[in-house]
């Protein structure tokens, strides 16, 4: 009896682990972006090594790219910080020198790497997927073993298509009940992080299970798996099922024809066997879950939107609240907001923008609020525009941007000014994450849109029909 994780791990062992050495694990798909790869390509150059399997690389530009339209590289220099532009150019050069196809500015596919992979059908059940990026856990939504690695390991994978790994432990999170209306996958994962803590998953691969998880769409499952790392787990996964196959069918890099049928037959063998053992199990019931919101400077400092901020007496807790200019015992509802960001690899997909539009349609963004909506990929942008969602955002007074990581990380232009309160659909509320001195609260797209139109923190259920 094996778990989903054990089945995938077992199939990818090139050399088993021993007391003296870790396992050599084969990597099916290597995602690459401009921030965490330059030093890895340098390593290859220094050692005179080629990229072993360029066909298993999927590369894009997302972090250091501006979200104002960029048509040519010349424009890039005009709108970018010089170091960001240099990093983008270096990525273009590295991909060219080593023979890797780059889905760059000219590509219809370009997007945040964790939005693009699934969209293209490159993310597949049963696969091992890595990237020099901690939110690689997103791809686990397809029943893949997907995790973030460092730049040295990026170099290892480029050179050998393998990684040295000790086998992690397994954690089953059994999610019972049904999510109430207008309570979203984002609220669910924030609840999970609040329950197990920001280090509750350290050393583990999480499998999210149970009726509430099976009922989620693929985009919702991606939102959940995305934030596994915020609970300390390198990987989070959901067993593949018909929802998975329906999402994948016909995508350009997914298997086609007879190969598709064979693949689905194989994927159906992947879910954890009944009675499979996990090193740890946690049960959570979501039947009475309410929209969630963070109040501190890590994603585990989270509460229901209509609660009051809890008490805490250790220094880190007090430091966090002082930074946030938030007080224990007070509600967050009604707190004035300055910036609203809707986007990122957590909530920058079509369904997220649709959710936000449910509230924005026919309303105006409050007077002193800046609303930035950044689609997760060029494809999300096209689809949203085909549905007129860009017009909904603009008519409300929001900014509709080019795809990229944008204000999730503030690496090229889009930042929250110091001291300002940002209501964000991204995944990290660390000090300064969205800009030096920026104060971030994490919420779902519905809650973000509600804050934008009211100008203060609002329970979105007051605004949805």
């Amino acid at each position, binding site marked *: 009896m094996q778990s989903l994780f054990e089945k995938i791990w077992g199939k990818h062992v090139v050399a088993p682990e021993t007391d003296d050495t870790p396992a*050599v694990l084969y990597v099916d798909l290597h995602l690459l972006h401009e921030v965490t790869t330059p030093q890895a390509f340098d390593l290859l150059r220094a050692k005179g090594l080629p990229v072993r399997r360029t066909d298993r690389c999927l590369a894009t530009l997302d972090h250091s790219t501006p979200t104002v339209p960029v048509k040519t590289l010349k424009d890039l220099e005009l709108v970018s910080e010089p*170091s960001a532009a240099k*990093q983008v150019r270096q990525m273009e050069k590295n991909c060219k020198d080593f023979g890797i196809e780059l889905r760059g500015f000219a590509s219809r596919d370009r997007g945040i790497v964790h939005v693009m992979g699934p969209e293209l059908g490159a993310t597949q059940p049963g696969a091992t997927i890595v990237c020099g990026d901690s939110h690689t856990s997103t791809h686990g939504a397809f029943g893949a073993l997907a995790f973030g690695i460092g730049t040295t390991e990026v170099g290892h994978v480029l050179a050998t298509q393998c990684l040295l790994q000790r086998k992690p432990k397994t954690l089953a999170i059994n999610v019972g009940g049904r999510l109430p209306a207008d309570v979203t996958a984002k609220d669910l994962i924030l609840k999970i992080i609040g329950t197990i803590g920001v280090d509750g998953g350290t050393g583990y691969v999480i499998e999210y299970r149970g009726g509430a998880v099976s009922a989620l769409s693929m985009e919702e499952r991606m939102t959940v798996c995305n934030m596994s790392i915020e609970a300390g787990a*390198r990987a989070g996964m959901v067993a593949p099922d018909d929802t998975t196959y329906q999402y994948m069918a016909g995508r350009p890099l997914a298997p086609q024809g007879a190969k598709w049928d064979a693949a689905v037959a194989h994927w159906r063998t992947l879910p954890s066997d009944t009675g499979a053992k996990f090193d740890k199990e946690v049960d959570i019931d979501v039947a009475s879950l309410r929209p969630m919101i963070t109040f501190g400077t890590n994603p585990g400092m989270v509460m229901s939107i209509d609660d009051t901020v809890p008490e805490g007496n250790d220094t*880190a807790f007090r*430091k966090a609240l002082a930074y946030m200019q938030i007080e224990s015992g007070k509600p967050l509802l009604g707190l004035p907001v300055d910036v609203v960001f809707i986007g990122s690899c957590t909530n920058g997909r079509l369904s997220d923008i649709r959710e936000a539009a449910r509230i924005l349609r026919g309303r105006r963004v409050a007077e002193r609020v800046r609303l930035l909506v950044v689609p997760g990929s060029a494809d999300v942008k096209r689809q949203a525009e085909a549905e007129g969602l860009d017009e909904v955002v603009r008519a409300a007074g929001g900014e509709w941007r080019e795809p990229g990581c944008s204000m999730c990380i503030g690496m*090229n232009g889009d930042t929250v000014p110091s001291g300002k309160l940002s209501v964000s659909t991204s995944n*990290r509320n*660390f000090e300064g994450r969205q800009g030096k001195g920026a104060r971030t609260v994490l919420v779902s797209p519905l809650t973000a849109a509600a804050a934008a139109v009211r100008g203060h923190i609002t329970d979105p259920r007051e605004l949805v029909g």
Partner: protein
Amino acid sequence: MDAVKEIRSRTVVLSNDDIDTDQIIPARFLTTTTKQGLGKNLFADWRYEKDGRERAEFALNRPENRGAAVLVAGSNFGCGSSREHAPWALLDFGIRAVVSTAIADIFRSNSLKNGLIPVIVDAASHRWLLDNPGAEVRVDLESSTLEMNGKRVAFPIDRFSRYCLMNGLDQLGFLLEQEAAIRRYEQAHA
């Protein structure tokens, strides 16, 4: 990578739990394409005033802590982003070991590949270290122990990483030697 067998140093203490890699090296410094020179931006938003002057009260800035190579930190150190820039910045600044009760997975893995030693200790030893900043300690890789307060406290480190660290070997060499097995695997799974 230089071989490392032991580190003798005073400690410098940052007692907060959950210090994330965005604090260790903020994202705006990640547009670099090299590993060098990140030390000046280590903990940039905690270390400097708005005008760029050092904040006198921040632990790493205090005169008595200059040159300390062992950082004692709160639990779950290095959580968040996978940026290897975090260990690069710590090493460039002069930190060579981090001691805590828990260290985040990716940060720990990145540290081991760069010669920064992650030292995980029990809660009581950790408490003593937090309460005694500037203590003289010795990290010994051979025995995987931390000498502190007149005793030796064992810490976990996998044998392979320890071997590579003590011999100054990068792990890529081992992977490249697996070529035959990798080729067999690829043929079987084509």
